[in-house]
């Protein structure tokens, strides 16, 4: 029965970057579907709908801090059925010659090193159940790069390569690792980078709200995708088809 494969009720899911944007939307959908959701974020969640659900467990902390990652492990349940490694940022979008070493290292810290190390901590501490599913937020920019995105695209490209390798390492343990790659989504990342309405028109199906594109992550977290690992689910309203400049 397919319905059972899509069922996430009672499943323990960790979502990083859960305070806003796509992370918040996914966490909210998961609690509505009955999952036990552990939301981790740097900025505090307050007065938001998700706090009214008793199956939402909030853990505040900074992904890039070793100490906070340790505290996350302590506050975690015995094991997770799924992890959505969503926390990330675009950093400052600037041309190659203007990228400072600090900016470059910061963006790699947030988009590459911390999700890598967090997943390693979870795995070494046996927090990932056999049959569990890891979903990492990639981006179309991870493989389609344009002007002024070298730092961001580089960090996402590194994530793609490394996590495909991790998927091969963990397949024998029946732990799956997949990606979602988003195009334009109406989040702070778009606003902060002043993406023009004209550019948004390049996305054939338009620019969705975060709450409209949670389905892909939920499919990959569920047993409905139990035969999928190392794959990228592109959720980009068709923008990647034309290889148009991005961001």
């Amino acid at each position: 029965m397919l319905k059972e494969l899509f069922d996430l009720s009672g499943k323990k899911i960790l979502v990083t970057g859960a305070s806003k944007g796509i992370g918040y939307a996914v966490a909210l959908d998961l609690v509505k579907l009955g999952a036990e959701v552990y939301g981790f974020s740097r900025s505090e969640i307050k007065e938001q709908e998700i706090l009214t659900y008793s199956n939402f467990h909030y853990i505040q902390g900074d992904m890039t801090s070793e100490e906070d990652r340790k505290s996350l492990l302590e506050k975690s349940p015995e094991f997770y059925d799924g992890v959505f490694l969503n926390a990330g940022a675009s950093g400052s979008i600037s041309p190659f010659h203007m990228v400072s070493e600090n900016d470059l290292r910061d963006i790699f810290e947030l988009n590459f090193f911390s999700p890598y190390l967090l997943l390693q901590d979870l795995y070494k501490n046996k927090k990932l159940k056999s049959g569990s599913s890891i979903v990492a937020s990639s981006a179309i920019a991870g493989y389609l790069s344009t002007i002024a995105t070298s730092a961001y695209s580089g960090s996402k490209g590194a994530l793609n390569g490394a996590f495909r390798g991790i998927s091969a390492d963990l397949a024998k343990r029946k732990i799956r690792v997949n990606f979602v790659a988003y195009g334009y989504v109406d989040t702070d990342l778009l606003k902060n980078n002043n993406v023009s309405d004209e550019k948004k028109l390049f996305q054939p199906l338009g620019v969705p709200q975060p709450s409209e594109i949670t389905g892909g992550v939920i499919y990959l977290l569920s047993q409905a995708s139990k035969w999928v690992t190392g794959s990228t689910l592109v959720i980009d309203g068709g923008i990647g088809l034309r290889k148009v400049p991005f961001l």
Partner: protein
Amino acid sequence: MSEFISLKEKNILVVGASSGIGKEIALGAAEMGGNVTCVSRRGKFTPETQDYGDKIKHTILDVTDIVSIPSFVASTNSPFDGLVYISGITGKSPIHLLEKQLLDNVIDTNLNGFLFLVKELMKQRKFNLGGSIVAISSISAHVGIHGVAPYSLSKAALSASVRVLAQEFARKKIRFNAISPAMVRTPLFLENEQEWLNQIERDSYPLGLGNPEDIAAATIFLLSERAHYITGIDLIMAGGCEWVS
């Protein structure tokens, strides 16, 4: 608690539905509340099942008989919200044994039937705006597999067609996606092939060979509203098979 996926009130056309993956997709779409029209050369499931009998209708069509497609589409009552195209023949043929007839048969079944069905559904306005089309392609469209040039090239063309059509129909919010599975354990494999299958599974598939339900679940997801910003993708499903990644 809310429900993740529903195909309630949706009319779904499943082409190549008589057995294996197609049958599982048809049953899955009905389970999710869809009204399913199954199309196959035989016009019924093999082996028979009465599951969701009131939600599933069977029709006979030979997709390689392209001149019959317009009248088939005209004979359908209401417009569709979903199309799944699974019809396919393997046409194993190392190049020194290649024959034109075999190549034509493979391309007619795996590719041309899809293109002309889409053409007629759109031309006769039998497909609703906002609908979703899923073509079952193959991992062989992406990697080199010994001895199956006709099959591989037909699936690669199917995957390419999906990308083009996704562009052409984005304005009408009709989505086109492909799924490219590696080896799936279907009832089409014979009794004497089971040991060979098990060996492949042990050697190359850490997550095991695929089950028809895995392909059905991905298809149902792509058909549903939950995937309504996904178009032009080709989802690789390979159970961790190393020579794929």
